[in-house]
């Protein structure tokens, strides 16, 4: 069952994309067929993981020194759910901006489905080179979606993203080649067993991590992100911030905590943590001075991604749980924010902050979604973001790492500052007139998609126990005891 389900999770969206290209008349149907069955398909793997812990399948019947294996453990299962859940809700929104039967929709949906499938394939893969191929597919599909409307700002942002992404892939690829030369395999778990630590594998690992840091836009390699995420079409911004940048962080975690589990690299861990800290500070401060709503949200992503790196210096049970939880709750909240911003942009015609005064009366659902998601980003109780940050604080407290503790707390304050700035403008200016700009209305389901995601981010604070249990079950080797 599990093998069939996992195969379809990757191939069904790909086939749906093929059908749209082959028979545009069937596009509405195939979009549905490529997305809606996915949560059902995920049930079998979920039961398998709850029951057995880890599930591995050798593709084409060739296992690991040579063949490609898929490995499903609790962490990859959570990533699959994150990707599926957010993609489906964002798709609901996108089906209004890009109706499947329209000309724009026929350009949009194949790329969207390929992006979805490739992220599923990436999360499952346990093979370093296969990860490279999936990551390229993710990147190309993502950039294709950024530029799909052909707006000059998006084109330029996409071009910059593409050049940096190509550079990043090359660094990663060089590392893969070196590790193959050292170990004669590409399986990331097998490499962990075989490798003897010396300067060469450490260099290979560093190259791969630098490449992935570029792809996940970690400060100071973040330069491409705000423009790309801030200028892409709304649903695309949502998926980029919520999932696409996360999958490369996921790859860093895999490499660090599994492949390089036994290596003693404290200095590098500290460096990565410092980069994360710098990202939190820089991203938040930059978000404070932006004039456009989508750019604020994009810089907020730069900041929130920083938390995901704190897991390296704080390495331990609690910090890992915190980081995974941050990944999930930030995904939900950020997708909600971008969708709400897209609705506002659609209705008002601009997302310049000073022209958004008083829209809470006209677009209550969207503003509510924005506020709810903001609660989670700021880390206020009872949201999922609160829980993640609380776990970080607890981890720092336990290790008496006061610097990190202050940083996490201060990051929350900064997030509150830039988000309250938005909410203040939106809600507290009853006297400004809206004038002639109130032309269009977003369709209600598009607002509901944003609201559902935001509610999800809040609910993540209440129903955390099963997810945390799952993360605990899937802790990397060596971290469980600490």
């Amino acid at each position, binding site marked *: 069952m599990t093998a069939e389900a996992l195969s379809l999770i990757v191939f069904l969206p790909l086939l749906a994309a093929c059908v749209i290209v082959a028979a545009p008349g069937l596009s509405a149907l195939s979009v549905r067929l490529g997305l809606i069955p996915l949560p059902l398909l995920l049930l079998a793997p979920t039961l398998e993981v709850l029951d057995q812990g880890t599930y591995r399948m050798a593709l084409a019947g060739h296992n690991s020194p040579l063949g490609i294996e898929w490995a499903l453990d609790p962490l990859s299962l959570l990533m699959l759910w994150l990707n599926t859940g957010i993609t489906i809700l964002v798709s609901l929104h996108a089906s209004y901006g890009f109706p499947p039967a329209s000309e724009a929709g026929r350009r949009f949906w194949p790329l969207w489905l390929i992006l979805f499938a490739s992220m599923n394939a990436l999360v499952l893969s346990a093979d370093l080179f296969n990860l490279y191929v999936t990551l390229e597919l993710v990147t190309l599909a993502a950039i294709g979606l950024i530029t799909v409307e052909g*707006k000059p700002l998006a084109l330029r942002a996409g*071009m910059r993203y593409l*050049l940096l992404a*190509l550079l990043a892939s*090359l660094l990663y*690829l060089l590392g893969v080649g070196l590790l193959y*030369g050292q170990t004669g395999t590409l399986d990331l778990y097998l490499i962990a067993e075989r490798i003897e630590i010396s300067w060469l594998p450490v260099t290979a690992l560093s190259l791969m991590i630098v490449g992935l840091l570029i792809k996940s836009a970690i400060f100071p390699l973040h330069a491409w992100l705000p*423009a790309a995420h801030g200028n892409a079409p709304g649903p695309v911004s949502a998926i980029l911030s919520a999932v696409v940048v996360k999958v490369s962080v996921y790859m860093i975690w895999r490499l660090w905590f599994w492949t390089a589990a036994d290596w003693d690299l404290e200095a590098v861990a500290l460096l990565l943590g410092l980069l994360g800290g710098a990202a939190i500070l820089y991203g938040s401060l930059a978000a404070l001075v932006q004039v456009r709503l989508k750019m604020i949200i994009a810089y907020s992503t730069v900041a929130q991604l920083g938390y995901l790196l704190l897991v390296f210096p704080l390495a331990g049970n609690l910090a890992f749980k915190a980081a995974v939880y941050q990944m999930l709750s930030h995904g939900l909240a950020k997708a909600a924010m971008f969708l709400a911003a897209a609705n506002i942009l659609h209705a008002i015609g601009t997302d310049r902050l000073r022209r958004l005064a008083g829209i809470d009366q006209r677009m209550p659902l969207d503003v509510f979604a924005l506020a709810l998601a903001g609660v989670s980003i700021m880390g206020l109780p009872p949201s999922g973001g609160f829980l993640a940050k609380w776990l970080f604080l607890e981890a720092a407290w336990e290790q008496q790492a006061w610097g990190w503790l202050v940083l996490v707390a201060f990051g929350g304050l900064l997030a509150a500052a830039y988000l309250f700035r938005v909410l203040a403008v939106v809600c507290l200016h009853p006297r400004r007139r809206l004038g002639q700009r109130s032309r269009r209305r977003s369709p209600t389901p598009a607002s509901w998609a944003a609201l559902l995601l935001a509610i999800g981010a809040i609910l993540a604070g209440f129903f955390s126990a099963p997810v945390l249990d799952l993360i605990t079950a899937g802790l990397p080797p060596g971290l469980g005891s600490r």
Partner: protein
Amino acid sequence: MADLGLYVFAAALLFGIGVYGLIVARHLMRKLFAINIMGNAIFILMVTAARPLDGAPDPVPQALVLTGIVIAVSATAFALALMVRLHRETGQVSLSADNESGGDDG
């Protein structure tokens, strides 16, 4: 088979040239030359990093490089299309212009 050390040397030089080009070149097409040249350098290293089998290079890295070449041409083709469109919209073939956060219609 040839002296692989010489080709490793070539790869190092090519990578350096590519990095230089990527930083210095303005025109996007030249940046693409640079990235492709760097890619070739890395492909050479991938093949030379594995011990040869039976006097020929290990087939696995060769297959990986073959995949890498096809991916490189796909990415290059898309980048070229993007460059042409960017030029049509803005009249520019470089990324040096700023004000990315501006623009009313986002």
